[in-house]
């Protein structure tokens, strides 16, 4: 059972009617008294009722038991890792986590105050194994910037970066970034054409920290301390809203099985990213490096046409470079949010970050074919 529920149980034996707000109150009070206390959260997209998916999905090596509460669920999760290179051949990781649905469509958050081993080896891996029904979400540097700007506007506080990890699109290795206002971090990344991966930050008002937290572009957040209300009322809903919009755009893009109609997407860049032949090669290399996928390059230069197949769920995409600042993604008869998240994030990380948009339905006239 989760530590927070146990604490609440000491106050009221019947915990079945507990609400999420009760849990956050306990988190607030434990965080105040225990400096080592940390809540780890992961936000993701689910194509259905995630609490049911977690309960019903049988995954080898995982055992899960669900407990129902008023507006959230908790799960006891045990993972048995069997591997020859582990002492004794097996290792058991167990703990508990909570789950709630955001107000934004399709977005869920799992949270736990267990240690990092449980979070990464058990919880995150369990969620990952529920693919492709469940998909990790991703925020671009620009979306992270907007998130912090909204947080500043709403709270009247300033976001200061304590530590950040920034990556170059092309070179190996991370760039550390310490103790600067958030806007300085994002300006730096934009200027250097880097992407922001992780940010540990504090929300400051008159020099006093009101929230100490962490956010990463792949949906992981940590609450280190401060007022949980800022986190639950401002950070998480804003995050959920942002990723919900992105995920909804990626949903239902498969070709119409009746008519064969296409539902293309576009990645649009503010500047020209395809000016030289090596830019095409750079994109192709980025696509070819995605694990569990296959790539066929039908046309390499001067325009790119590649066929991409995701071996996780069979999603297929035709990818065209249709302009100096535009990539067109045309999903095939199988397409999932999971796979499109994977594909676009791979392009954003290994090529350049852009914005995913609906690719407008084409309509051309004679003059479009005659104009110089």
């Amino acid at each position, binding site marked *: 059972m989760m530590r927070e529920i146990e604490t609440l149980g000491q106050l009221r034996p019947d915990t079945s009617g507990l609400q999420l707000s009760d849990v956050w109150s306990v988190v607030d009070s434990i965080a105040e008294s225990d400096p080592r206390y940390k809540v780890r959260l992961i936000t993701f997209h689910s194509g259905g009722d995630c609490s049911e998916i977690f309960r019903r999905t049988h995954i080898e090596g995982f055992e899960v038991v669900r407990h129902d509460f008023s507006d959230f669920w908790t799960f006891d999760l045990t993972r048995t890792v069997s591997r020859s290179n582990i002492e004794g051949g097996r290792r058991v990781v167990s703990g508990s986590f909570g789950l709630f649905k955001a107000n934004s469509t399709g977005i869920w958050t799992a949270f736990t105050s267990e240690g990092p081993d449980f979070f*990464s*080896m058990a919880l*995150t*891996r369990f969620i*990952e194994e529920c*693919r*492709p029904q469940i998909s990790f979400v991703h925020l671009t540097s620009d979306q992270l910037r907007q998130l912090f700007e909204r947080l500043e506007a709403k709270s009247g506080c300033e976001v200061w970066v304590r530590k950040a990890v920034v990556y170059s699109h092309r070179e190996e290795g991370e760039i550390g970034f310490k103790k600067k206002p958030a806007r300085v971090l994002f300006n730096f990344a934009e200027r250097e054409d880097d992407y922001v991966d992780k940010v540990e930050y504090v929300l400051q008002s008159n020099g006093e920290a009101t929230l100490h937290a962490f956010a990463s572009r792949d949906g992981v957040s940590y609450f280190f301390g401060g007022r949980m209300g800022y986190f639950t009322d401002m950070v998480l809903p804003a995050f959920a809203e942002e990723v919900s919009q992105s995920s909804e755009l990626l949903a239902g893009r498969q070709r119409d099985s009746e008519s*064969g109609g*296409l539902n293309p997407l576009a990645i649009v860049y503010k500047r020209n990213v395809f000016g030289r032949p090596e830019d095409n*090669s750079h994109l*192709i*290399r980025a*696509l*070819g*490096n*995605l*694990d*569990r*996928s*296959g*790539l*066929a*390059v*039908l*046309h390499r230069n*001067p*325009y790119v*046409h*590649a*066929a*991409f*197949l995701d*071996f*996780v*769920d*069979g999603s*297929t995409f*035709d990818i*065209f*470079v*249709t*302009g*100096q600042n535009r990539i*067109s993604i*045309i999903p*095939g*008869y*199988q397409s999932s949010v999971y796979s499109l998240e994977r594909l676009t994030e791979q392009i954003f*990380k*290994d090529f350049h970050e852009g914005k995913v948009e609906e690719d407008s339905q*084409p*309509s*051309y*006239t*004679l003059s*479009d*074919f*005659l*104009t*110089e």
Partner: protein
Amino acid sequence: MTPGSDSDCVDDLKRAFSVYDQTVDVVSCWQSYFTWAYKDHLTFFDRYPEVPQADLTPDFTVLLGNYGLVGEVKRSFPREDLPFDRTLEQIQHYDAPMSIKSNSDGSRVVPETQDIMLLLFSPSDSYAIARRIRERIEDGRLSVQNNLVLVEAFFENTEPRSRYVFRKVHTDNRPFRDSLLPKELRLEEVLGLHKESIKVYPEHFKDFKVKEVFCNDNPPPLYTAVYLWTKVFFTLLDKEQIATWRKGNPRRSVPLLVEIPSLTAQINSAFVRGGSVRTSWISDALEFLRVCDLAMKESPGKFTVQYHNLSSHSYADSAREGGSDVTQATEEYVDTLARRYCEGLTKEVVPPPPATTTGPHQTRLPVE
């Protein structure tokens, strides 16, 4: 021989792939042009025309009311007179009044006026070809009742966007006889009188290319094999096979039994809708995969494909458990399959080539 070291073999296969892909592009360009620019006048664009009584397969036909256009794409013309004349003989077959498809149900009409558009793709000497054709018409060696109109086609790498360009050859050529069309839509008005060119960008034709995939020429087996591997085979797997893959190593092979007639029918009904993918194309592709050591012939028309991810990049069990992206030279299927095929060839017992062949692979390599 080092696996895949026969670079001539690999290059030949990839060149044939590229030539076919560009022909698909060119046909898609014209389909896009007529579909969009002539939307109120286009009766039907047939991408897979067949004229059964004459066994003719031009690259496309267009019916615009009572005006018909037969399109033929030519990558090259022989320099020597005899083969040059033979090439013209093939085109001359399109000269008879030809029934052209008027809708997707297969109805046909013989239009009042019909022209033949010969698309010379990336020739260095299209004006010389036009002159030689005119000479043959003038001295009676070539008789063409319908117009034979020559149009140059080439890919132009321009800023900011590259594009296909189509331009009428302006000397030694004939006019399009499309006066039945509104003036602004007449090809003769646009390409002839005003000497304009038609520019088609990837964004114009990409949807047609994705939907149609092929053109009316026999594809190189490598082209069809890549299509089957990236778009079709995965959909034939059952849930258990897919689930096993999702969790385990995606390079593990999954045996997939395919029958050529049913696979062809499935592609024409569910993938390339209304397409005319021939059983011979699928058969050639499966035979190609057999040489690649990726398929086994069980009986006539039946193959077991050993389906898996052909990319050898390692995969992360979980990126969040310390797995990471793998950065190495990009592997892609066109190259991988070409190499596997050439490697497979060296393992096969190759019968001695007939006396007329000129190269070691001629009996096996796909010919465009």
